[in-house]
Protein backbone atom coordinates (compact mmCIF):
# COMPACT_ATOMS: atom_id res chain seq x y z
CA UNK A 1 0.00 0.00 0.00
CA UNK A 2 1.15 3.51 -0.65
CA UNK A 3 2.08 6.00 2.01
CA UNK A 4 1.54 9.69 2.50
CA UNK A 5 4.38 12.12 2.25
CA UNK A 6 4.62 15.43 4.00
CA UNK A 7 7.24 17.90 2.97
CA UNK A 8 7.89 20.83 5.28
CA UNK A 9 10.21 23.77 4.65
CA UNK A 10 12.52 21.74 2.45
CA UNK A 11 15.59 23.64 1.34
CA UNK A 12 18.41 22.16 -0.70
CA UNK A 13 21.73 23.33 -2.04
CA UNK A 14 23.98 22.05 -4.76
CA UNK A 15 27.30 23.62 -4.01
CA UNK A 16 26.67 27.34 -3.66
CA UNK A 17 23.37 27.24 -5.54
CA UNK A 18 20.16 27.04 -3.60
CA UNK A 19 18.05 24.74 -5.71
CA UNK A 20 15.06 24.36 -3.39
CA UNK A 21 13.87 27.42 -1.50
CA UNK A 22 11.44 26.11 1.06
CA UNK A 23 8.99 23.57 -0.25
CA UNK A 24 5.82 22.71 1.63
CA UNK A 25 3.78 19.97 0.10
CA UNK A 26 1.43 17.15 1.01
CA UNK A 27 1.48 14.15 -1.26
CA UNK A 28 -1.46 11.79 -1.12
CA UNK A 29 -1.12 8.05 -0.90
CA UNK A 30 -2.15 5.83 -3.82
CA UNK A 31 -2.14 8.84 -5.99
CA UNK A 32 -0.16 9.90 -9.02
CA UNK A 33 1.29 13.34 -8.49
CA UNK A 34 3.00 15.00 -11.43
CA UNK A 35 5.68 17.60 -10.95
CA UNK A 36 6.02 20.01 -13.82
CA UNK A 37 8.10 23.07 -14.48
CA UNK A 38 10.82 24.46 -16.77
CA UNK A 39 14.31 23.03 -16.69
CA UNK A 40 16.32 24.05 -13.70
CA UNK A 41 13.26 24.63 -11.54
CA UNK A 42 14.35 22.07 -8.97
CA UNK A 43 11.89 19.27 -9.70
CA UNK A 44 14.58 16.62 -10.04
CA UNK A 45 16.32 17.83 -6.92
CA UNK A 46 13.03 17.70 -5.04
CA UNK A 47 12.32 14.17 -5.99
CA UNK A 48 15.87 13.08 -5.24
CA UNK A 49 15.56 14.49 -1.74
CA UNK A 50 12.68 12.17 -1.01
CA UNK A 51 14.80 9.07 -1.34
CA UNK A 52 17.84 10.87 0.03
CA UNK A 53 19.77 10.44 -3.21
CA UNK A 54 20.51 14.13 -3.41
CA UNK A 55 22.84 13.90 -0.47
CA UNK A 56 24.97 11.21 -2.14
CA UNK A 57 26.40 13.86 -4.43
CA UNK A 58 29.36 15.81 -3.09
CA UNK A 59 28.79 19.39 -2.03
CA UNK A 60 25.07 19.09 -1.33
CA UNK A 61 23.10 20.17 1.69
CA UNK A 62 19.50 19.63 2.77
CA UNK A 63 17.44 21.27 5.51
CA UNK A 64 13.82 20.62 6.35
CA UNK A 65 11.44 17.82 7.08
CA UNK A 66 10.09 15.02 5.00
CA UNK A 67 7.68 12.75 6.83
CA UNK A 68 6.88 9.41 5.29
CA UNK A 69 3.91 7.65 6.84
CA UNK A 70 4.44 9.44 10.12
CA UNK A 71 8.17 9.04 10.37
CA UNK A 72 10.87 11.49 9.32
CA UNK A 73 13.05 10.10 6.60
CA UNK A 74 16.06 11.66 8.22
CA UNK A 75 15.54 9.46 11.25
CA UNK A 76 15.99 6.37 9.16
CA UNK A 77 18.95 4.58 7.66
CA UNK A 78 19.09 6.00 4.14
CA UNK A 79 19.89 2.61 2.68
CA UNK A 80 16.81 1.10 4.29
CA UNK A 81 14.71 4.11 3.30
CA UNK A 82 15.44 3.50 -0.33
CA UNK A 83 13.75 0.14 -0.11
CA UNK A 84 10.57 1.94 0.84
CA UNK A 85 11.02 4.72 -1.68
CA UNK A 86 11.96 3.41 -5.09
CA UNK A 87 13.18 5.34 -8.10
CA UNK A 88 13.10 5.04 -11.85
CA UNK A 89 15.50 7.20 -13.78
CA UNK A 90 15.24 9.21 -16.95
CA UNK A 91 17.57 7.07 -18.95
CA UNK A 92 16.93 3.34 -18.44
CA UNK A 93 19.84 1.92 -16.50
CA UNK A 94 19.66 -1.86 -16.20
CA UNK A 95 22.80 -3.38 -14.80
CA UNK A 96 24.97 -4.39 -17.80
CA UNK A 97 26.61 -7.31 -16.04
CA UNK A 98 23.32 -9.02 -15.21
CA UNK A 99 20.66 -10.93 -17.07
CA UNK A 100 17.04 -9.80 -17.20
CA UNK A 101 16.17 -12.09 -14.32
CA UNK A 102 19.16 -11.00 -12.27
CA UNK A 103 18.31 -7.37 -12.91
CA UNK A 104 14.75 -7.71 -11.67
CA UNK A 105 15.73 -9.44 -8.45
CA UNK A 106 18.93 -7.46 -7.91
CA UNK A 107 17.51 -5.31 -5.13
CA UNK A 108 15.96 -8.26 -3.38
CA UNK A 109 18.84 -10.66 -3.77
CA UNK A 110 21.59 -8.29 -2.77
CA UNK A 111 19.64 -7.60 0.39
CA UNK A 112 19.58 -11.15 1.54
CA UNK A 113 16.91 -13.12 -0.27
CA UNK A 114 18.56 -16.26 -1.52
CA UNK A 115 15.81 -18.78 -1.98
CA UNK A 116 15.56 -19.62 -5.67
CA UNK A 117 11.84 -20.21 -5.76
CA UNK A 118 11.13 -16.98 -3.93
CA UNK A 119 13.30 -15.10 -6.36
CA UNK A 120 11.58 -16.61 -9.34
CA UNK A 121 8.18 -15.80 -7.92
CA UNK A 122 9.25 -12.24 -7.20
CA UNK A 123 10.66 -11.87 -10.69
CA UNK A 124 7.51 -13.08 -12.36
CA UNK A 125 5.25 -10.93 -10.21
CA UNK A 126 7.34 -7.80 -10.79
CA UNK A 127 7.65 -8.36 -14.50
CA UNK A 128 3.90 -8.84 -14.78
CA UNK A 129 3.27 -5.65 -12.88
CA UNK A 130 5.60 -3.88 -15.28
CA UNK A 131 3.76 -5.42 -18.23
CA UNK A 132 6.97 -7.02 -19.43
CA UNK A 133 6.52 -10.67 -18.45
CA UNK A 134 5.07 -11.93 -21.70
CA UNK A 135 7.81 -10.37 -23.74
CA UNK A 136 10.74 -11.70 -21.78
CA UNK A 137 9.54 -14.84 -20.03
CA UNK A 138 11.40 -17.03 -22.50
CA UNK A 139 14.64 -15.16 -22.34
CA UNK A 140 15.12 -14.31 -18.72
CA UNK A 141 18.79 -15.17 -18.87
CA UNK A 142 19.51 -12.81 -21.73
CA UNK A 143 21.54 -9.76 -20.87
CA UNK A 144 19.62 -6.91 -19.35
CA UNK A 145 20.85 -4.52 -21.99
CA UNK A 146 19.75 -6.64 -24.90
CA UNK A 147 16.24 -5.16 -24.74
CA UNK A 148 14.87 -2.15 -26.54
CA UNK A 149 14.77 1.21 -24.76
CA UNK A 150 11.15 0.93 -23.77
CA UNK A 151 11.59 -2.61 -22.55
CA UNK A 152 14.65 -1.62 -20.58
CA UNK A 153 12.69 1.06 -18.80
CA UNK A 154 9.95 -1.41 -17.95
CA UNK A 155 12.68 -3.72 -16.69
CA UNK A 156 13.90 -0.92 -14.44
CA UNK A 157 10.36 -0.41 -13.20
CA UNK A 158 10.03 -4.13 -12.50
CA UNK A 159 13.34 -4.00 -10.68
CA UNK A 160 12.13 -1.11 -8.55
CA UNK A 161 8.81 -2.82 -7.82
CA UNK A 162 10.46 -6.09 -6.81
CA UNK A 163 11.70 -4.45 -3.64
CA UNK A 164 8.05 -3.69 -2.73
CA UNK A 165 8.36 0.03 -2.13
CA UNK A 166 5.49 2.13 -0.87
CA UNK A 167 6.44 5.16 -2.91
CA UNK A 168 7.69 5.20 -6.47
CA UNK A 169 9.63 8.21 -7.72
CA UNK A 170 9.89 8.58 -11.46
CA UNK A 171 12.22 11.18 -12.91
CA UNK A 172 11.03 11.79 -16.48
CA UNK A 173 10.74 8.07 -17.08
CA UNK A 174 9.52 8.29 -20.64
CA UNK A 175 11.52 11.22 -21.97
CA UNK A 176 14.16 8.99 -23.52
CA UNK A 177 11.59 6.71 -25.16
CA UNK A 178 9.68 6.68 -28.41
CA UNK A 179 5.93 7.48 -28.39
CA UNK A 180 4.76 3.88 -28.39
CA UNK A 181 7.00 2.92 -25.50
CA UNK A 182 5.83 6.08 -23.74
CA UNK A 183 2.23 4.97 -24.07
CA UNK A 184 3.09 1.64 -22.47
CA UNK A 185 4.76 3.35 -19.56
CA UNK A 186 1.85 5.69 -19.03
CA UNK A 187 -0.57 2.78 -19.11
CA UNK A 188 1.59 1.04 -16.56
CA UNK A 189 1.57 4.02 -14.23
CA UNK A 190 -2.20 4.15 -14.30
CA UNK A 191 -2.31 0.52 -13.27
CA UNK A 192 0.21 0.93 -10.49
CA UNK A 193 -1.57 3.82 -8.84
CA UNK A 194 -3.82 1.66 -6.72
CA UNK A 195 -0.96 0.16 -4.83
CA UNK A 196 1.70 2.83 -4.79
CA UNK A 197 2.19 6.48 -4.14
CA UNK A 198 3.69 7.76 -7.35
CA UNK A 199 5.56 10.98 -7.95
CA UNK A 200 6.41 11.61 -11.55
CA UNK A 201 8.57 14.43 -12.78
CA UNK A 202 7.73 15.38 -16.32
CA UNK A 203 8.38 18.21 -18.73
CA UNK A 204 5.49 16.96 -20.86
CA UNK A 205 2.33 18.67 -19.72
CA UNK A 206 0.07 16.50 -21.81
CA UNK A 207 1.54 13.50 -20.07
CA UNK A 208 0.75 15.05 -16.70
CA UNK A 209 -2.76 15.72 -17.86
CA UNK A 210 -3.14 12.13 -19.01
CA UNK A 211 -1.97 10.23 -16.01
CA UNK A 212 -1.72 12.40 -12.90
CA UNK A 213 -4.35 12.83 -10.22
CA UNK A 214 -2.69 15.97 -8.96
CA UNK A 215 -0.02 18.22 -10.36
CA UNK A 216 2.52 20.49 -8.74
CA UNK A 217 4.13 23.36 -10.60
CA UNK A 218 7.68 24.26 -9.62
CA UNK A 219 9.50 27.39 -10.65
CA UNK A 220 12.95 28.58 -9.59
CA UNK A 221 13.11 26.23 -6.64
CA UNK A 222 9.66 27.11 -5.32
CA UNK A 223 6.41 25.23 -5.31
CA UNK A 224 4.11 27.69 -7.02
CA UNK A 225 0.91 25.73 -7.12
CA UNK A 226 -0.30 22.25 -6.30
CA UNK A 227 -3.75 20.84 -6.88
CA UNK A 228 -5.94 18.46 -8.82
CA UNK A 229 -4.63 18.08 -12.33
CA UNK A 230 -7.83 19.21 -13.97
CA UNK A 231 -7.86 22.35 -11.85
CA UNK A 232 -4.25 23.22 -12.57
CA UNK A 233 -4.70 22.93 -16.28
CA UNK A 234 -8.09 24.53 -16.70
CA UNK A 235 -8.17 26.99 -13.85
CA UNK A 236 -4.73 27.80 -12.48
CA UNK A 237 -4.73 30.15 -9.53
CA UNK A 238 -1.27 31.63 -9.98
CA UNK A 239 -0.37 33.74 -12.97
CA UNK A 240 3.00 32.04 -13.30
CA UNK A 241 1.31 28.68 -13.58
CA UNK A 242 -0.97 30.02 -16.24
CA UNK A 243 1.94 31.46 -18.18
CA UNK A 244 3.81 28.20 -18.12
CA UNK A 245 0.82 26.12 -19.11
CA UNK A 246 -0.11 28.36 -21.96
CA UNK A 247 3.41 28.26 -23.21
CA UNK A 248 4.49 31.78 -22.58
CA UNK A 249 7.73 30.44 -21.30
CA UNK A 250 9.07 27.02 -20.77
Amino acid sequence: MGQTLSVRKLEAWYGPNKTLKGINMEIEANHVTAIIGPSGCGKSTFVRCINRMHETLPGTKVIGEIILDGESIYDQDPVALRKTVGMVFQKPNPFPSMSIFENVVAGVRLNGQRNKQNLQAIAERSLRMAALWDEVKDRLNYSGISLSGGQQQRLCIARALAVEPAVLLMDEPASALDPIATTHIEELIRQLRDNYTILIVTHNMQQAARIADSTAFFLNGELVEHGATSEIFTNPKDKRTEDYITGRFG
Partner: protein
Amino acid sequence: MKQYIRKYKNWLMLSVFVAATIIALVPLFGVLGYVLKNGLGALNIQFFTNLPKAMGLSGGGMANAIVGTLIMVLIASLIGIPVGILAGIYLTEYDRHSWFSTAVRFATDVLTGIPSIIVGIVIYTAIVLKMGNFSALAGGLALAIIMIPLIIRSTEEMLKLVSHSIREAGYALGISKGKTILKIVLPTAAKGIITGAMLAIARVSGETAPLLFTALGNQYWARSLNEPIASLPVQIFQYATSPYKEWHQLAWAGSLVLILMIIIINLAARFAFRSRHS
Protein backbone atom coordinates in the same frame (compact mmCIF):
# COMPACT_ATOMS: atom_id res chain seq x y z
CA MET B 1 52.24 28.30 -59.87
CA LYS B 2 51.72 28.64 -56.12
CA GLN B 3 49.06 25.95 -56.25
CA TYR B 4 51.49 23.55 -57.83
CA ILE B 5 54.11 24.15 -55.18
CA ARG B 6 51.56 23.59 -52.40
CA LYS B 7 50.45 20.34 -53.94
CA TYR B 8 54.02 19.21 -54.27
CA LYS B 9 54.82 20.11 -50.67
CA ASN B 10 51.76 18.20 -49.57
CA TRP B 11 52.80 15.12 -51.46
CA LEU B 12 56.34 15.40 -50.15
CA MET B 13 55.37 15.70 -46.49
CA LEU B 14 52.83 12.91 -46.68
CA SER B 15 55.44 10.67 -48.23
CA VAL B 16 57.77 11.55 -45.41
CA PHE B 17 55.19 10.32 -42.93
CA VAL B 18 54.69 7.11 -44.83
CA ALA B 19 58.45 6.65 -44.93
CA ALA B 20 58.64 7.24 -41.18
CA THR B 21 56.10 4.51 -40.60
CA ILE B 22 58.01 2.10 -42.79
CA ILE B 23 61.26 2.95 -41.00
CA ALA B 24 59.54 2.41 -37.68
CA LEU B 25 58.29 -1.01 -38.69
CA VAL B 26 61.58 -2.24 -40.11
CA PRO B 27 63.16 -2.96 -36.72
CA LEU B 28 59.97 -4.68 -35.60
CA PHE B 29 60.14 -7.13 -38.44
CA GLY B 30 63.89 -7.28 -38.11
CA VAL B 31 63.82 -8.32 -34.49
CA LEU B 32 60.82 -10.62 -34.78
CA GLY B 33 62.20 -12.11 -37.96
CA TYR B 34 65.55 -12.99 -36.49
CA VAL B 35 64.00 -14.30 -33.29
CA LEU B 36 61.74 -16.49 -35.36
CA LYS B 37 64.49 -17.67 -37.66
CA ASN B 38 67.15 -18.38 -35.08
CA GLY B 39 64.80 -19.38 -32.33
CA LEU B 40 62.77 -21.87 -34.28
CA GLY B 41 65.89 -23.74 -35.26
CA ALA B 42 66.95 -24.24 -31.67
CA LEU B 43 63.50 -25.06 -30.33
CA ASN B 44 62.92 -28.68 -29.54
CA ILE B 45 61.49 -30.87 -26.81
CA GLN B 46 64.68 -30.69 -24.80
CA PHE B 47 64.30 -26.97 -24.58
CA PHE B 48 61.17 -27.35 -22.57
CA THR B 49 62.17 -30.31 -20.48
CA ASN B 50 65.88 -30.10 -19.82
CA LEU B 51 67.95 -28.12 -17.44
CA PRO B 52 70.83 -26.11 -18.80
CA LYS B 53 73.85 -28.20 -19.65
CA ALA B 54 77.41 -27.17 -19.04
CA MET B 55 79.00 -24.89 -21.57
CA GLY B 56 79.79 -26.44 -24.84
CA LEU B 57 77.43 -29.35 -24.48
CA SER B 58 74.33 -29.51 -26.62
CA GLY B 59 70.94 -30.70 -25.53
CA GLY B 60 70.48 -28.20 -22.77
CA GLY B 61 67.16 -26.56 -22.13
CA MET B 62 65.50 -23.78 -20.24
CA ALA B 63 62.90 -25.72 -18.34
CA ASN B 64 63.89 -24.21 -15.02
CA ALA B 65 63.90 -20.71 -16.46
CA ILE B 66 60.40 -21.07 -17.88
CA VAL B 67 59.06 -22.42 -14.61
CA GLY B 68 60.93 -19.75 -12.68
CA THR B 69 59.32 -17.01 -14.72
CA LEU B 70 55.89 -18.54 -14.23
CA ILE B 71 56.43 -18.80 -10.49
CA MET B 72 57.63 -15.25 -10.03
CA VAL B 73 54.95 -13.80 -12.26
CA LEU B 74 52.44 -15.71 -10.17
CA ILE B 75 53.85 -14.32 -6.93
CA ALA B 76 53.85 -10.84 -8.41
CA SER B 77 50.25 -11.23 -9.57
CA LEU B 78 49.04 -12.57 -6.24
CA ILE B 79 50.41 -9.48 -4.56
CA GLY B 80 50.13 -6.85 -7.23
CA ILE B 81 46.68 -7.48 -8.67
CA PRO B 82 44.67 -7.34 -5.44
CA VAL B 83 46.59 -4.33 -4.14
CA GLY B 84 46.24 -2.54 -7.47
CA ILE B 85 42.54 -3.24 -7.91
CA LEU B 86 41.64 -2.34 -4.33
CA ALA B 87 43.61 0.89 -4.49
CA GLY B 88 41.97 1.68 -7.81
CA ILE B 89 38.57 1.10 -6.24
CA TYR B 90 39.35 3.52 -3.43
CA LEU B 91 40.48 6.23 -5.81
CA THR B 92 37.38 5.94 -7.97
CA GLU B 93 34.56 4.99 -5.64
CA TYR B 94 35.42 6.60 -2.35
CA ASP B 95 37.71 9.51 -2.86
CA ARG B 96 38.10 11.01 -6.29
CA HIS B 97 39.03 14.56 -5.57
CA SER B 98 40.85 15.09 -2.31
CA TRP B 99 44.48 16.00 -1.76
CA PHE B 100 45.02 12.44 -0.54
CA SER B 101 43.89 10.87 -3.78
CA THR B 102 45.91 13.39 -5.76
CA ALA B 103 48.94 12.39 -3.74
CA VAL B 104 48.29 8.72 -4.34
CA ARG B 105 47.90 9.29 -8.07
CA PHE B 106 51.13 11.21 -8.09
CA ALA B 107 52.89 8.38 -6.30
CA THR B 108 51.42 5.96 -8.82
CA ASP B 109 52.81 8.05 -11.64
CA VAL B 110 56.21 8.14 -9.99
CA LEU B 111 56.21 4.39 -9.57
CA THR B 112 55.24 3.91 -13.21
CA GLY B 113 58.23 5.90 -14.35
CA ILE B 114 60.86 4.29 -12.13
CA PRO B 115 63.48 2.40 -14.12
CA SER B 116 62.90 -1.22 -13.22
CA ILE B 117 66.49 -1.72 -12.16
CA ILE B 118 65.90 0.73 -9.33
CA VAL B 119 63.17 -1.53 -8.04
CA GLY B 120 65.75 -4.29 -8.03
CA ILE B 121 68.15 -2.19 -6.01
CA VAL B 122 65.53 -1.39 -3.41
CA ILE B 123 64.46 -4.99 -2.96
CA TYR B 124 68.09 -6.00 -2.78
CA THR B 125 68.95 -3.61 0.02
CA ALA B 126 65.69 -4.06 1.86
CA ILE B 127 65.10 -7.76 1.52
CA VAL B 128 67.91 -9.74 0.00
CA LEU B 129 70.52 -8.26 2.32
CA LYS B 130 68.28 -8.65 5.36
CA MET B 131 67.37 -12.23 4.52
CA GLY B 132 70.91 -13.06 3.54
CA ASN B 133 70.03 -14.75 0.27
CA PHE B 134 68.57 -14.21 -3.17
CA SER B 135 65.14 -15.68 -3.62
CA ALA B 136 62.14 -16.17 -5.85
CA LEU B 137 60.15 -14.26 -3.28
CA ALA B 138 62.38 -11.23 -3.62
CA GLY B 139 62.10 -11.44 -7.39
CA GLY B 140 58.35 -11.80 -7.24
CA LEU B 141 58.11 -8.84 -4.90
CA ALA B 142 60.16 -6.67 -7.25
CA LEU B 143 57.84 -7.58 -10.11
CA ALA B 144 54.83 -6.88 -7.92
CA ILE B 145 56.05 -3.34 -7.29
CA ILE B 146 56.25 -2.85 -11.04
CA MET B 147 52.76 -4.25 -11.53
CA ILE B 148 50.93 -2.28 -8.86
CA PRO B 149 50.91 1.18 -10.47
CA LEU B 150 49.98 -0.29 -13.85
CA ILE B 151 46.99 -2.04 -12.38
CA ILE B 152 45.89 0.95 -10.33
CA ARG B 153 45.90 3.04 -13.49
CA SER B 154 43.93 0.63 -15.62
CA THR B 155 41.46 -0.22 -12.85
CA GLU B 156 40.79 3.45 -12.27
CA GLU B 157 40.23 4.06 -15.93
CA MET B 158 37.85 1.15 -16.28
CA LEU B 159 35.85 2.03 -13.19
CA LYS B 160 35.48 5.60 -14.35
CA LEU B 161 33.89 4.31 -17.53
CA VAL B 162 31.02 2.81 -15.56
CA SER B 163 28.20 5.33 -15.89
CA HIS B 164 27.25 6.96 -12.62
CA SER B 165 23.65 6.16 -13.38
CA ILE B 166 24.39 2.49 -12.72
CA ARG B 167 25.64 3.26 -9.25
CA GLU B 168 22.61 5.43 -8.58
CA ALA B 169 20.32 2.64 -9.69
CA GLY B 170 21.97 0.44 -7.11
CA TYR B 171 21.63 2.97 -4.30
CA ALA B 172 18.03 3.66 -5.29
CA LEU B 173 17.21 0.01 -4.74
CA GLY B 174 18.39 0.23 -1.17
CA ILE B 175 21.70 -1.49 -1.87
CA SER B 176 24.54 -0.27 0.29
CA LYS B 177 27.53 1.44 -1.28
CA GLY B 178 29.90 -1.44 -0.60
CA LYS B 179 27.58 -3.98 -2.14
CA THR B 180 26.95 -1.71 -5.10
CA ILE B 181 30.67 -1.49 -5.71
CA LEU B 182 31.35 -5.19 -5.35
CA LYS B 183 28.28 -6.68 -6.98
CA ILE B 184 27.32 -4.11 -9.58
CA VAL B 185 30.11 -1.72 -10.50
CA LEU B 186 32.99 -4.17 -10.39
CA PRO B 187 31.28 -6.83 -12.51
CA THR B 188 30.39 -4.15 -15.03
CA ALA B 189 34.01 -3.06 -15.31
CA ALA B 190 35.36 -6.60 -14.94
CA LYS B 191 36.36 -7.17 -18.54
CA GLY B 192 38.39 -4.01 -18.72
CA ILE B 193 40.03 -4.63 -15.37
CA ILE B 194 41.02 -8.14 -16.38
CA THR B 195 42.46 -6.80 -19.61
CA GLY B 196 44.51 -4.32 -17.62
CA ALA B 197 45.77 -7.05 -15.34
CA MET B 198 46.74 -9.27 -18.25
CA LEU B 199 48.63 -6.47 -19.95
CA ALA B 200 50.51 -5.86 -16.71
CA ILE B 201 51.34 -9.57 -16.50
CA ALA B 202 52.65 -9.53 -20.04
CA ARG B 203 54.76 -6.54 -19.21
CA VAL B 204 56.45 -7.99 -16.13
CA SER B 205 57.06 -11.38 -17.72
CA GLY B 206 59.67 -9.76 -19.90
CA GLU B 207 61.44 -7.82 -17.17
CA THR B 208 65.08 -8.69 -16.58
CA ALA B 209 66.72 -5.90 -14.63
CA PRO B 210 64.69 -6.18 -11.42
CA LEU B 211 65.48 -9.88 -11.21
CA LEU B 212 69.23 -9.58 -11.65
CA PHE B 213 69.94 -9.06 -8.00
CA THR B 214 66.81 -10.32 -6.36
CA ALA B 215 66.20 -13.73 -7.84
CA LEU B 216 69.68 -13.85 -9.29
CA GLY B 217 69.45 -17.00 -11.39
CA ASN B 218 69.97 -20.69 -11.02
CA GLN B 219 71.32 -23.40 -13.26
CA TYR B 220 69.19 -25.97 -11.49
CA TRP B 221 65.73 -26.26 -10.12
CA ALA B 222 65.08 -24.11 -7.09
CA ARG B 223 63.93 -26.28 -4.25
CA SER B 224 62.08 -23.57 -2.42
CA LEU B 225 60.90 -20.02 -2.89
CA ASN B 226 63.66 -18.85 -0.61
CA GLU B 227 66.44 -19.66 -3.06
CA PRO B 228 67.81 -18.08 -6.19
CA ILE B 229 65.69 -19.07 -9.13
CA ALA B 230 66.13 -18.98 -12.89
CA SER B 231 63.93 -16.90 -15.13
CA LEU B 232 63.57 -16.71 -18.86
CA PRO B 233 64.72 -13.10 -19.34
CA VAL B 234 67.70 -13.42 -17.02
CA GLN B 235 68.73 -16.70 -18.60
CA ILE B 236 68.50 -15.16 -22.05
CA PHE B 237 70.70 -12.33 -20.86
CA GLN B 238 73.29 -14.65 -19.39
CA TYR B 239 73.39 -16.86 -22.46
CA ALA B 240 73.46 -13.99 -24.92
CA THR B 241 76.44 -12.42 -23.20
CA SER B 242 78.30 -15.71 -22.90
CA PRO B 243 80.90 -16.90 -25.39
CA TYR B 244 79.25 -20.24 -26.15
CA LYS B 245 77.45 -20.82 -29.42
CA GLU B 246 75.09 -23.43 -27.97
CA TRP B 247 74.03 -20.96 -25.36
CA HIS B 248 73.48 -18.31 -27.99
CA GLN B 249 71.09 -20.59 -29.76
CA LEU B 250 69.26 -21.23 -26.53
CA ALA B 251 69.04 -17.48 -26.02
CA TRP B 252 67.26 -17.14 -29.38
CA ALA B 253 64.94 -20.00 -28.57
CA GLY B 254 64.22 -18.50 -25.18
CA SER B 255 63.49 -15.16 -26.79
CA LEU B 256 61.05 -16.80 -29.15
CA VAL B 257 59.21 -18.47 -26.30
CA LEU B 258 59.18 -15.26 -24.26
CA ILE B 259 57.88 -13.16 -27.13
CA LEU B 260 55.22 -15.71 -27.98
CA MET B 261 54.10 -15.74 -24.37
CA ILE B 262 53.85 -11.97 -24.29
CA ILE B 263 52.11 -11.64 -27.63
CA ILE B 264 49.59 -14.33 -26.76
CA ILE B 265 48.73 -12.68 -23.45
CA ASN B 266 48.45 -9.32 -25.21
CA LEU B 267 46.15 -10.64 -27.91
CA ALA B 268 44.06 -12.59 -25.42
CA ALA B 269 43.69 -9.50 -23.27
CA ARG B 270 42.66 -7.30 -26.14
CA PHE B 271 40.38 -9.64 -28.02
CA ALA B 272 38.92 -12.10 -25.58
CA PHE B 273 38.00 -9.33 -23.20
CA ARG B 274 36.94 -6.72 -25.65
CA SER B 275 34.10 -4.80 -24.09
CA ARG B 276 31.06 -4.25 -26.22
CA HIS B 277 31.14 -0.56 -26.90
CA SER B 278 27.99 0.81 -28.42
